[in-house]
């Protein structure tokens, strides 16, 4: 059972499996229980549900055919890329078809003159940069899962990464999408130029969590590799000073390519796992990467070093060579699996906060950690305010998962309270539906539902995800009051 129940009235239409077999080769339709098992969850494995069937088309025409069959029978469709998403956006529905784009793995065109790549949605993020490397180009957004996650999923979630401050999110790096509508029609948004006529549907598609249309092709922006990249690692005795140093770097007018913070539990876990050379006793470390032309990087490295030392860093290391720079990053990028080694399970949160609130938020997370009796390790995209607290728990201990979820919910509500958001880059999916009720009021939620209905009038594309029903929010609000311990009683509620 999914941990957040599907509220919909189910529409079981088992004959759809036979109809799919009419439009797809037999090896493109899975319906046996054991075949469905690998698809029962995405990267949020606490939520599981087997779909009625899995469709694995290999052509756009087949995707259209699947959509037409499902549309005619009012059967819900959930699109899935590599299944690495962390918010349950690709969680199947019991009466639905899971539409896997995993077989769309071709890079269709590299265009170094226009600095673009045209790719199928199942192409892995990292493989775009690998293919573009021979032209001295790369694709900038680099979520930590980039060796596995696919570009279609990146667009659906508007994925971020560690270089967003300077190079933007997925939405800033996509030029054009080819999509299939819920009715099975092909259409395009964006263009090969810098803009397109009409409303900016391209921006709207990014981060729409598979609720508006199915992505079947993406044209992405490529950037020239910087002439040079250099990274600094700074250790601090307390988190406040590390946070203040971040603000001072930004205030100096330098835009680092990456600016990451880790707290002590995260440092220890990452160091034990990746042997990146992190100072194990530091309360916090900052990793600051600077890239650009040679002269620019030399200039900025000196300034950032001074700022860090002035800001109370106990140690500042500049990577001696490319190997050490990559080691600094390896520790950071492997923080999640590293934490996975020190705890049977962990729950990754994804709030964004204004940077100035960092120390207050971390202090409150500490208090909540004590309250719930669960450890937490924090990794933080400090440059853009995106916080990833990793709550450590053991699913085999009765009640621990429930406590972890409550703890996570409190953190997200705290992010909203200080002027941030419940999701910076992982998406709402099913996971954060309740917290959406805190961030948006009734009229805003109604507007979001109306927007979805413009693309999907019957509501069969990934229904129940990303935007909570008003009914759910009413129940969630009531539940909070029943507990009698509303975390932030001063917040307006719907």
């Amino acid at each position, binding site marked *: 059972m999914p941990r957040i129940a599907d509220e919909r009235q189910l529409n079981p239409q088992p004959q759809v499996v036979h109809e799919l077999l009419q439009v797809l080769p037999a090896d493109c339709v899975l319906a046996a229980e054991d075949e469905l098992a690998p698809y029962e969850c995405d990267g949020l494995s606490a939520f599981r549900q087997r779909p009625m069937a899995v469709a694995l088309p290999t052509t756009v025409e087949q995707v259209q055919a699947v959509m037409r069959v499902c549309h005619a029978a009012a059967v819900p469709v959930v699109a899935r890329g590599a299944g690495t998403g962390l918010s349950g956006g690709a969680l199947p529905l019991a009466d639905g078809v899971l539409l896997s784009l995993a077989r769309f793995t071709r890079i269709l065109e590299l265009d170094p003159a226009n600095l673009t790549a045209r790719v199928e949605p199942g192409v892995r993020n990292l493989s775009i940069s690998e293919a573009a490397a021979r032209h001295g180009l790369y694709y900038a957004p680099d979520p930590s899962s980039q060796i596995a996650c696919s570009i279609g999923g990146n667009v659906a979630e508007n994925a971020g990464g560690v270089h967003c401050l300077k190079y933007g999110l997925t939405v*800033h790096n996509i030029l054009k999408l080819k999509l299939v509508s819920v009715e099975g029609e092909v259409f395009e948004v964006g263009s090969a130029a810098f803009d397109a006529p009409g409303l900016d549907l391209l921006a709207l598609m990014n981060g729409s969590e598979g609720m508006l249309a199915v992505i079947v092709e993406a044209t992405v922006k490529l950037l020239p590799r910087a*002439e040079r990249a250099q990274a600094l690692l700074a250790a601090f005795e307390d988190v406040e000073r590390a946070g203040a140093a971040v603000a001072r770097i930004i205030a100096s007018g330098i835009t680092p390519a990456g600016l990451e913070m880790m707290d002590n539990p995260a440092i220890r876990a990452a160091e034990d796992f990746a042997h990146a050379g992190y100072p194990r006793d530091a309360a916090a470390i900052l990793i600051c990467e600077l890239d650009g032309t040679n*002269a*620019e990087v030399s200039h900025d490295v000196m300034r950032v070093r001074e700022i860090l030392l002035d800001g109370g860093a106990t140690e500042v290391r500049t990577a001696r060579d490319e190997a050490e720079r990559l080691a600094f990053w390896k520790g950071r990028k492997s923080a999640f699996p590293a934490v996975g080694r020190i705890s049977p399970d962990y729950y990754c949160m994804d709030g964004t906060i204004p940077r100035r609130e960092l120390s207050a938020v971390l202090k409150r997370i500490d208090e909540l950690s004590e309250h719930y009796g669960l450890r937490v390790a924090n990794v933080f995209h400090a440059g853009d305010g995106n916080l990833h607290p990793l709550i450590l728990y053991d699913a085999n201990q009765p009640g621990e998962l429930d406590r972890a979820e409550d703890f996570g919910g409190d953190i997200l509500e705290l992010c909203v309270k200080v002027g941030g958001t419940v999701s910076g880059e992982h998406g709402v999916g099913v996971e954060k539906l309740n917290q959406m009720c805190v961030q948006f009021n009734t009229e805003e939620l109604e507007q979001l539902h109306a927007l979805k209905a413009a693309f999907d009038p019957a509501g069969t594309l990934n229904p129940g995800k990303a935007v909570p029903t008003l009914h759910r929010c009413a129940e969630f609000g009531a539940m909070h009051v029943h507990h009698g311990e509303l975390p932030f009683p001063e917040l307006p509620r719907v």
Partner: protein
Amino acid sequence: MPDASIRGELPPERDIEVELREQVAAAHAAGTTLAIAGGGTKAFYGRSLETAATLDVTPHQGVVAYEPTELAITVRAGTPLAAVEALLDANGQQLPFEPPHFGAAATVGGAVAAGLSGPRRPYAASVRDAVLGVRMLNGRGQVLDFGGRVMKNVAGYDVSRLMAGSLGVLGVLLEVSLKVMPKPVGKLTLLREEPLERALGLMRQWAGRSLNLTATAWADGHLYARLCGSDEALAEGRGAIGGEPLAARGFWTNLREQRLAAFDGPEPLWRVSVAPASGPLTLAERQVVEWGGGLRWFKADLDPVETRAAAQAAGGHATLFRAGGGTARGDVFTPLGEVSARLHRRLKQAFDPAGILNPGRMYPEL
């Protein structure tokens, strides 16, 4: 409230949200069409409007939040663009998208709703890239907040970026939160005499290299390139770009504001947006190129069908940007495909069910 430590002068404050909300709600109830008005500097852009009434947003002014180290500013939509740019400048920052003003009365809301970006666009960001959040009225007169003031936010559909360039057909902007960027420590414009075809080739060569370019243009037989950075970085860039430094100031502002000689005269002005590596387009004699080859301006009374076909063949689209004396042929924007047009109509219905906001400004049916 803006941070107490910021430098420079804050624009005057006035909050008329309640009045604006009441006007839109009343217009919704009565089915009265409204023209949303900022400073009127871009009234020429888009299809002409005939509405029963005007909704004047210009009194709704002031900086709601600004902390330079958060790299974001939130302002009311009627705030003069020039005042916001001056405030950012005093704090060593700037808007990444370098928007055209087209007059002193330009407002921030108008700049976002028009969605027009200036010379820095390919090298930094477009208007919509820089939008972090909006507070808006939909066509029912409901006050809605989408996005926020933080860099990363994927909660809910990205309505705030959808509003950029929407020409007021979905809602009335009340406040916008924009990403800002540091001003460069130094800049340098280099000038080379080059024919169009060679100039386009050079722009593409440079775009594929790690250079500190912030703008490129071709006009009157000359290729212009703007670099930014420290003295060392500028020297390095000059070595790569070649040409001579341009002593006269104001070229980029004049390009952005369409005050170069090539923009003079009563003829219509066509904006042709193409894949940047497209070869020379010879639609008319008088041409200005920007954005590394991605934007081509033509000052002539062009045939709309041929112009749009040429733009489409080059991966883009053509807009009748200024109709000149009003005699220009054809509609303003490139018509949409069938599915896209249907989605546009349904989105309009979702945000403005009575069809009262800027009806017909973008397309006749919106």
